[in-house]
């Protein structure tokens, strides 16, 4: 089928603003045919969702299409009235969003929502709509669909919810489906199933699909053709394989190069320029002689959380989030910790750094002895000076009400690491060390981009001259290109300062790039823990194998 279903021509989308209009999309051309999946890729803010929303006629306020056209089988959607556009939604064009958790009305049963859509879109009586709804649920692979109809969204798992969302979007049998990051919120294994579902629906119903994503891996595995966007402009387009393997534009090349590979360890993260200055000397000050033994050792560690009562009668139970026999990290080593969401990675990491006290078992530090003993104020203070954390979300990990220089000066002052008069200079030097201008200290966190904020977080962690750094998904909120910079910075710091690191991530590719050793977690247990290269090349555990197999890879990822 080569018939063009939907075409945008010279599409221009503007968000008027009092300080000058912001044009989110400049002259974008795209074609979608029946039965094909078109990938739309680009870094965050490139304008991908904006295009999807524009086709749906659901641009968020105050956005408007300021030029060009959107044709759906020859009809220009831009000329349509609101009412006409509303009739198209669901019937001709369907859309699904990133997060299946929030896309469903939590107060209505799944069956009601689906039957409602079907009844309205097809003018069917409710009873028939319900029957059809059950069929549809069955069609997207929900087992035991009839009895599942009466359940509420919260009773479904993430993957099932996303299937329900797809069934809902397909309720009116639209010709075009726009999927805006449909799997970003899902685990890799579930992600694969959902993508497969979209793929099969597309083929079965000869549907046109626009798949919006920032994940090259998803595109590589799913899309037939791909459009690469940057700053609202089309950069490059072509069949997926061609764009990925032989990109013509510099931007696309950079983008693809920045993707960490799950297949191999790449050199660009490990050979940074050597920068040793005064600040490094300060950072290295006051540490004991380095021994080469284990810096931190956990033994028979468990952590229980109280669960909520199941009912009025039930008793509060406990839920074991972590249960490991032992784990140790050598001085100067980077231990990668991978596993699905909820497997206990963060909890384990926090126990290893003493931020969370274990329910049983103990953590020992070479420098400070067992964690259990560190409850005294003075010893805890000493531990806090040596152990630091960098978090996933650069937005919530900085106090928005404090200026950056304050954020950085506070730990130095609190631990008395420098004379008061030296602190401003040190703060400036720290900022420069992580690649920011010293003047950045005068600003507030919200005045920085995500990547810059993450640098501030790292600077804050460094400001107490730590020996051990927990990085809890430090790059997963960042775009690939920024992610690469970040990883390079971390590796460089690790090398020049001899940091010991626990690197937590669900992104297997990223972990491969930075880790000496990797531990794989599943439901609170460590299923495999070995040298990184060995583990990736020849996984021994089934679960590890499954994880590695389902991870989408572009050239990697």
């Amino acid at each position: 089928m080569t018939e063009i279903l939907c075409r945008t021509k010279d599409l221009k989308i503007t968000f008027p603003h009092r300080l000058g209009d912001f044009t989110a999309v400049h002259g974008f051309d795209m074609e979608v045919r029946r039965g094909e999946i078109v990938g739309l890729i680009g870094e965050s803010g490139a304008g991908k969702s904006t295009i999807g929303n524009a086709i749906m006629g659901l641009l968020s306020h105050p956005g408007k299409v300021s030029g060009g056209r959107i044709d759906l089988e020859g009809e220009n959607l831009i000329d349509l009235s609101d009412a006409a556009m509303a009739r198209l939604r669901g019937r001709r064009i369907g859309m699904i969003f990133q997060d299946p958790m929030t896309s469903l009305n939590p107060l209505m049963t799944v069956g009601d929502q689906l039957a409602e859509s079907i009844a309205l879109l097809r003018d069917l009586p409710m009873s028939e709509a319900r029957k059809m709804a059950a069929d549809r649920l069955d069609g997207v692979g929900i087992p035991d669909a009839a009895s599942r109809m009466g359940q509420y969204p919260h009773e479904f798992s993430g993957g099932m919810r996303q299937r329900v969302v797809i069934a809902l979007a397909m309720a009116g049998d639209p010709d075009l489906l726009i999927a805006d990051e449909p799997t970003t919120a899902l685990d890799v294994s579930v992600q694969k199933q959902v993508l497969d579902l979209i793929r099969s629906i597309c083929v079965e119903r000869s549907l046109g699909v626009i798949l919006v994503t920032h994940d090259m891996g998803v595109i590589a595995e799913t899309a037939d053709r791909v459009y690469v966007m940057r700053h609202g402009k089309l950069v490059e387009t072509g069949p997926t394989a061609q764009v990925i393997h032989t990109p013509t534009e510099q931007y696309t090349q950079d983008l693809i190069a920045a993707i960490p590979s799950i297949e191999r360890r790449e050199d660009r993260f490990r050979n940074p320029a050597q920068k040793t200055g005064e600040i490094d000397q300060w950072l290295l000050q006051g540490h004991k002689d380095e021994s080469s033994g284990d810096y931190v050792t956990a033994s028979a560690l468990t952590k229980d959380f109280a669960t909520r009562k199941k009912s009025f009668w039930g008793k509060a139970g406990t839920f074991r989030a972590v249960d490991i026999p032992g784990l140790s990290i050598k001085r100067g080593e980077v231990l990668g910790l991978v596993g699905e969401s909820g497997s206990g990675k963060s909890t384990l990491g926090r126990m290893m750094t003493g931020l969370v006290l274990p329910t049983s078992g103990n953590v020992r530090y070479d420098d400070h002895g067992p964690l259990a003993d560190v409850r005294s104020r003075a010893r805890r203070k000493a531990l806090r000076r040596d152990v630091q954390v960098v978090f996933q979300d650069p937005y919530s990990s900085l106090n928005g009400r404090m200026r950056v220089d304050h954020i950085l000066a506070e730990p130095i002052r609190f631990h008395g690491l420098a004379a008061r008069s030296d602190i401003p200079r040190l703060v400036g030097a720290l900022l420069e060390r992580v690649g920011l201008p010293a003047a950045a200290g005068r600003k507030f966190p919200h005045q920085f981009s995500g990547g810059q904020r993450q640098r501030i977080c790292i600077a804050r962690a460094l400001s107490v001259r730590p020996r051990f750094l927990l990085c809890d998904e430090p790059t997963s909120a960042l775009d690939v290109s920024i992610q690469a910079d970040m990883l390079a910075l971390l590796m460089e710091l690790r090398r020049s300062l001899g940091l010991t690191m626990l690197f937590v991530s669900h992104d297997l590719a990223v972990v491969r790039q930075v880790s000496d050793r990797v531990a794989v977690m599943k439901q609170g247990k460590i299923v495999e823990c070995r040298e990184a290269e060995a583990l990736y090349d020849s996984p021994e555990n089934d679960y590890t194998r499954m994880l590695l197999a389902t991870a989408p890879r572009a050239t990697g990822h």
Partner: protein
Amino acid sequence: MLERIRSDFWYELLNSPVTIISAVIIVLMIIGCTFAPVFAPHTPFDPATISIMDNNMPPAWQDGADPRFLLGTDLQGRDVLSAMLYGGRISLLVGIGAVALSVVIGMTVGLLAGYFGGMTDAVLMRVAEIQFAFPPILIALLFNGILKASLPADVFAQAAVPIMILAIGLAGWVQFARIVRASAMVQRGQDYVTACHAIGLPTATIILRHITPNILGPVLVLAMLQIAVAIVTEATLSFLGLGTPLTEPSLGALIQIGSQYLFSGIWWVVIFPGIMLLVMVVAFNLVADWVRDYLNPRLR
């Protein structure tokens, strides 16, 4: 002109004339009332300067008026305009003072409950619940009544304003405790707090220096609304005979006294103070609404 303004705050503010007017009114009222002795043409609370023979004079533009009294005089011969300014001072003092007290108690309780959770939270919230079972007006009524009855009358008369502040303030803290607790629970889970722990900062520092500034927004909004509510509550208590003393009436007490004259044609003793109270309260409400919207950019 507007396009030039880079700061969102000023832009949003200048785009909302209603808010500007309200804010200006609040500022003017606060200045006018605070410096009532300077602005008021008479000193209505000084019996030596008022004459019973001047009583019940209509506003200056009406027949039989005395030009000395722009808005007329009341039954005591007090200049209504001056009484309004002095009374407004008391109302504002009570409103702001009571809310300040509520904020202090509510923030303390809310922060402790929200930050520590567990038993602390359970106990504090039970206490709040008991308190909440009694609507503010009832608490203020009881509290005020009790003190009025148990303190010697002269002490009470001296202390009427502080007591009013105490009564209304004590009645209002729960609302603050609730929102502060909710915000504190959210903030506690934020990574920046964990980062503070990682640095080893003491809990008090974390709560005071890091969490508190982050929850001030909603507190500010609620405070503005509560000032309005407190002013009205004070007026209502005056209606029930528990407000400020006759000799130093607040705006609410003036209205209460004046409302008895509604049928007798001496309308100016109730209408003018009534308008002033209404304008004051509405202005606080409108500014609070705007701040709320401003703090929630999604609603802009």
